[in-house]
């Protein structure tokens, strides 16, 4: 039964998405409220359970391979799950189930919640598919499903609430994003022309025999394409607008799930397929630039969601830096930070959503003194902010510390020093945000603001508990990340498992 788990994890949200219109019609007939939202929650939690069930098999016995239609690679399409994409799939499924629970209340006032649920499930299906597949073109297709879903989700509020900046952000995201995915397609086309195969494992094996100068163009195209998705610095223009204009639940999903899937695609293609550990230094430099520019831009923001967007870009820099070092410790720190980033970034965007839900604005100038009205949200926001700034004993500290040490061990002590300074800057702008939202003078019109509803607080509390648990017991997180790191550093087991017996 467990052999079909990979395909089930993709098909559940995909078919769930197409069932929602029917459920919407039926529930309207029988006047059942919020049936679509609940259905989305059930589907996503089941997906998470399926992914978790794969965990035992993958961690125990290595790579799980599912052949679609029984066609063996390199002719057929395979789904191949090793430690690396299992970790990513866990993050994606976990974040999207929490987002679905959060949206139960957050999107309640909108009448066409069924459209929202369809898109939410489609984005999850795309992210799961591009994570679990072992075929590069299949990865592209699922990546497009995920991207198109997220363009529509970013622009969705224009249809719900006539929020005009969201359609503008949606267009911007869509133009830049589709340019990126076109470049990915061109890269895949060049690879196919060169090698004549689309299975990642097969490509990885055969690319080793091709001269390095020949693979440079497709490699650059793929890095640029995936770099747009994860908002690496010269390619980040869409991110602040999109994160600000999207519903906060979707900002959490974009920050926690789709960028994670994008980063996974980047790692898988660059490191496993091209075996290009040589470009690691470039990643480390890009990561450094990303973290510096992101942190500096975040300092000047006057809107909480824009601030969180820039800080998310900055955190992506840490991950790129850690993974770019290419040492065991660096990769471990980078992947651990990837996990932690999904946790606290989703938590912070959900807090911003809670404030937006109760107050109606996230402009820092108009907020103040909310700590008395929303003590739980305030506490959760502080936990998230301290975790993201790398304050012990929270999870951000454990992963950032690993990255610093890895940087020093790799002989790049200067880089580590800059990373530490950026961490202090992160703390600075988050203290500024905490100060102007929860402390200080409370404007008169904010007197009667109530605490956010419990359904919204529940996923936030869960994430905050994870922040603390992974911070107090970092070995737990390291154990979770170790199989992923092992899979990334040693790709021959993946290749053998996929191409085995040929």
């Amino acid at each position, binding site marked *: 039964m467990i052999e079909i788990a990979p395909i089930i994890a993709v098909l559940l949200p995909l078919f769930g998405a197409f069932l929602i219109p029917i459920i919407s019609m039926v529930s309207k007939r029988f006047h059942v409220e919020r049936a679509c939202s609940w259905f989305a929650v059930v589907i996503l939690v089941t997906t998470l359970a399926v992914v978790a069930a794969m965990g035992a098999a993958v961690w125990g016995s290595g790579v799980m391979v599912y052949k679609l239609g029984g066609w063996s690679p390199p002719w057929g399409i395979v789904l191949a799950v090793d430690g690396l994409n299992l970790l990513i799939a866990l993050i994606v499924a976990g974040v999207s189930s929490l987002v679905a629970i959060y949206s139960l209340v957050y999107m309640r006032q909108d009448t066409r919640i069924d459209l929202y649920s369809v898109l939410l499930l489609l984005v999850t299906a795309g992210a799961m598919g591009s994570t679990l597949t072992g075929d590069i073109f299949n990865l592209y297709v699922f990546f497009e499903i995920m991207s198109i879903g997220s363009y*529509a989700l970013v622009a969705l509020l224009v249809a719900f609430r006539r929020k*005009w*900046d969201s359609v*503008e952000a*949606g267009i911007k995201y*869509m133009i830049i994003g589709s340019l990126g995915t076109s470049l990915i*397609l*061109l890269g895949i086309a060049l690879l*196919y022309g060169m090698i004549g195969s*689309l299975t990642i494992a097969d490509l990885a094996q055969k690319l080793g025999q091709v001269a390095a100068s020949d693979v440079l163009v497709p490699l650059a195209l793929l890095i640029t394409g995936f770099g747009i998705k994860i908002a690496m610095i010269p390619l980040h223009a869409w991110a602040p607008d999109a994160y600000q204009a999207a519903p906060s639940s979707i900002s959490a999903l974009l920050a926690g799930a789709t960028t994670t899937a994008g980063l996974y695609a980047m790692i898988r293609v660059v490191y496993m397929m091209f075996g290009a550990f040589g470009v690691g230094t470039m990643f480390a430099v890009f990561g450094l630039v990303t973290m510096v520019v992101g942190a500096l831009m975040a300092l000047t923001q006057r809107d909480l969601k824009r601030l969180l967007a820039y800080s998310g870009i900055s955190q992506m820099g840490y991950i790129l830096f850690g993974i770019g070092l290419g040492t065991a410790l660096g990769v471990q720190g980078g992947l651990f930070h990837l996990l932690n980033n999904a946790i606290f970034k989703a938590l912070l965007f959900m807090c911003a959503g809670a404030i937006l839900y109760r107050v109606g604005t996230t402009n820092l100038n108009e907020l103040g003194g909310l700590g008395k009205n929303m003590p739980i949200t305030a506490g959760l926001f502080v936990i998230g902010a301290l975790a993201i700034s790398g304050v012990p004993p929270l999870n951000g500290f454990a992963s950032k510390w690993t990255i610093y040490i890895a940087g020093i061990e790799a002989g790049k002590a200067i880089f580590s020093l800059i990373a530490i300074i950026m961490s202090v800057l992160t703390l600075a702008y988050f203290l500024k945000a905490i100060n102007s939202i929860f402390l200080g003078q409370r404007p008169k019109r904010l007197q009667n603001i109530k605490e956010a509803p419990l359904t919204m607080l529940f996923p936030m509390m869960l994430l905050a508990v994870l922040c603390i648990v992974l911070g107090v017991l970092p070995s737990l997180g390291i154990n979770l990340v170790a199989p992923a790191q092992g899979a990334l550093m040693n790709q021959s087991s993946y290749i053998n498992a996929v191409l085995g017996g040929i």
Partner: protein
Amino acid sequence: MSLNYVVAMLLIALGLYCLLLKRNLIKMVIGLGVMTDGIHLFLISLGYREGGIAAIVTGGMLQDNAAASFASAAVDPIPQALVLTSIVINICIVALALSMAIWVYHHYGTLDPSEIRRLRE
């Protein structure tokens, strides 16, 4: 045959130019479409073979010698499948982009991205 590649690269370059430098949302969407079509032409040219036959096996083709000659004459069917998939994806993108452009035009009365930014502030 090499003409295909030249045209494909021209289409990609033109589309990219149109996407990045035009100040009209509709033209940008057209540019995106042209660029993707260039990539499609490139992909389909990869699998094309001068005087090739369709990669469809019919009765009698798989007898001893016929199989080898079939394999040497048939065009590569995979790029065609890829292009078909990609065309469908492209339709989704163009439809979504145009519907967003309609929203923008209804509200702002213009399709110029910089004009829209100015109107908002």
